């Protein structure tokens, strides 16, 4: 390759290059038109929405003083005499998230094998399981919660069921993607040494996918904890019932206490899940990172 100096680049060269590679220098006319169309269209849709929902009206702007009053009422938070009740409900929320995540995480495993292309050669079953999972997770937690509450009655069990259903739906997809991404070589090795189908799964697949499965299940536990805090709005157990009750009765200072408790709990679970992920799922890597037995033995040798 010959080197090009900056001084060598003349306008003629630039013009020639522009002719040869027009897209490097500027967008084509069609692309520019599309871009303009998207921008203008987007802005028009936004204005249509804002206008339709009354963002330009007196009513919208008149609401802000009321919002100020509301936020002023929230502080200082009150309701500490009911703290026992709140803590109880928070515990119920955590219990729902825990049981739901555990059951969902286990239930999704067999379906995930059915839904992955490399484990399920019969394509209609694979495709059908994937779509089944899509249907499970297409509705929100609250919709499933509402249906289960109507069918089974109030309380935390319908909430747990709603969490299980959505957790299973999402985890089938995530698990099966993990299973599809595995390395074939260990499987070939087990097959070559005479392993059967179960042995292939036990020694070839599970060691590879288990960390990913656990990590995804933990991630869903975080997400389920958030969901469990609101499922009470439709009567499916947990802190959500108390929260919506207080907000609907305009008891903003009590609600502030509950919201602060929710924030703390959600943070706590996020932190716990992060630590568990570090400690147990990538545990070996973390432990070996700062504490390798071989290195320590070698260091003691030098002394």
């Amino acid at each position, binding site marked *: 390759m010959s080197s090009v100096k900056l001084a060598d680049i003349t306008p003629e060269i630039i013009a020639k290059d522009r002719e040869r590679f027009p897209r490097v220098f500027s967008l084509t006319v069609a692309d520019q038109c599309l871009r303009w169309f998207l921008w203008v269209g987007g802005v028009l849709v936004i204005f249509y929405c804002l206008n339709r929902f009354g963002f330009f009206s007196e009513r919208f702007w008149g609401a*802000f003083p009321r919002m100020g009053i509301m936020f002023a009422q929230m502080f200082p938070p009150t309701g500490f005499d009911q703290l026992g009740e709140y803590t109880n409900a928070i515990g119920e929320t955590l219990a729902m998230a825990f049981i739901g995540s555990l059951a969902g995480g286990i239930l999704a495993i067999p379906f995930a094998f059915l839904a992955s292309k490399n484990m399920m050669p019969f394509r209609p079953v694979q495709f059908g399981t994937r779509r089944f999972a899509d249907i499970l997770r*297409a*509705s*929100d937690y609250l*919709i499933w919660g*509402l*249906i289960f509450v109507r069918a089974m009655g109030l309380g935390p069990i319908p909430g747990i069921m709603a969490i299980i259903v959505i957790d299973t739906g999402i985890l089938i997809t995530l698990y099966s993607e993990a299973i599809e991404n595995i390395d074939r070589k260990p499987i070939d090795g087990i097959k070559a040494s005479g392993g059967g189908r179960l042995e292939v799964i036990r020694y070839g697949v599970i060691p590879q996918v288990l960390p990913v499965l656990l990590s995804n299940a933990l991630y869903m536990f975080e997400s389920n904890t958030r969901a469990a805090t609101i499922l009470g709005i439709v009567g499916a157990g947990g802190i959500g019932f108390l929260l919506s009750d207080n907000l609907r009765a305009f008891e903003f200072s009590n609600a502030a206490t509950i919201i602060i408790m929710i924030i703390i709990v959600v943070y706590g679970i996020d932190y716990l899940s992060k630590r568990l992920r570090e400690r147990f799922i990538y545990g070996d890597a973390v432990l070996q990172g700062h504490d390798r*037995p071989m290195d320590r033995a070698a260091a*003691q*040798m030098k002394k």
Partner: protein
Amino acid sequence: MPSETASQTAPMDIVTQFEIARSDYLGRKRMYLVLFWVAFVVSLALAVWHSGFSIVEVVDGLPRTTEFIVRMYSALTIENFYADLIDWFWGFEEWLDALFVSLLMAFLATVIGTTLGGTLSFYASRNLAKNYAVYFVTRRILEIARTVPDIVWALIFIYPFGVGPVAGILALTIHTTGAQGKLFAEVNENIDHKPIDGIRAAGGNWFEEIRFAVVPQVMPNFISYTFWRLALNVQAATVMGFVGAGGIGYELINAVKLLYFLDTGAILLMIICTVFLIDMASEKLRHRIIGKETLIG
């Protein structure tokens, strides 16, 4: 530590030292594992006891739920398919309108929330924020916006703004701001710093650094996250009506509460189809944008 005292008194051969260190390591690993399982079993027992979870009740409730769902979708007969379909979707226009409101709510919230979150994300990334105080405060604001569930924001905004889509839009906007701000800040923290140095060397100020050095690098990821968030927001907007914050959720919760099984089924079918379509479209667009951008970059 036994190995250290031993090495001070007498030299030990490397194999013994290694074995000691290894058993030390394995013992600690086993201890953590045992601790984990004990904690796990205790929390499971506590959870089952506290929530009153019983398999009997679940097994008891499942047939009732199945019956509920079957009754939701028992409108159609083969002999009289079209008439049944029309009869089933008697409120189609009304529901479609409510569904459209949900979509618009999600769209508006995604646009405004992403703009706000994207702007704040530059202040919330450690490598770009001008000083630690700005970084810290922005992070905390984004965290609170994200951690409070969107439906709780909706319940809060119902009081000042009244029943209707405005409360839902604001709720989704705040949640989107927090979520996008955090994700975008993570993208910002992983950028290549050489372009920033280049802009700074050429005399650019902070805004020019962001505009010409950071934004071109992070844009594909921002757009991809935005489409993803749009799909999530559509799903969230379908339930905003549960608390009176606009959209199809109001029709759904009424149908369920009044035990209009067929209406519930029809509305749910519409919601699921919409969420499906938006999800698929969003994924297609994301793959296209990321694929295209990586080809150029």
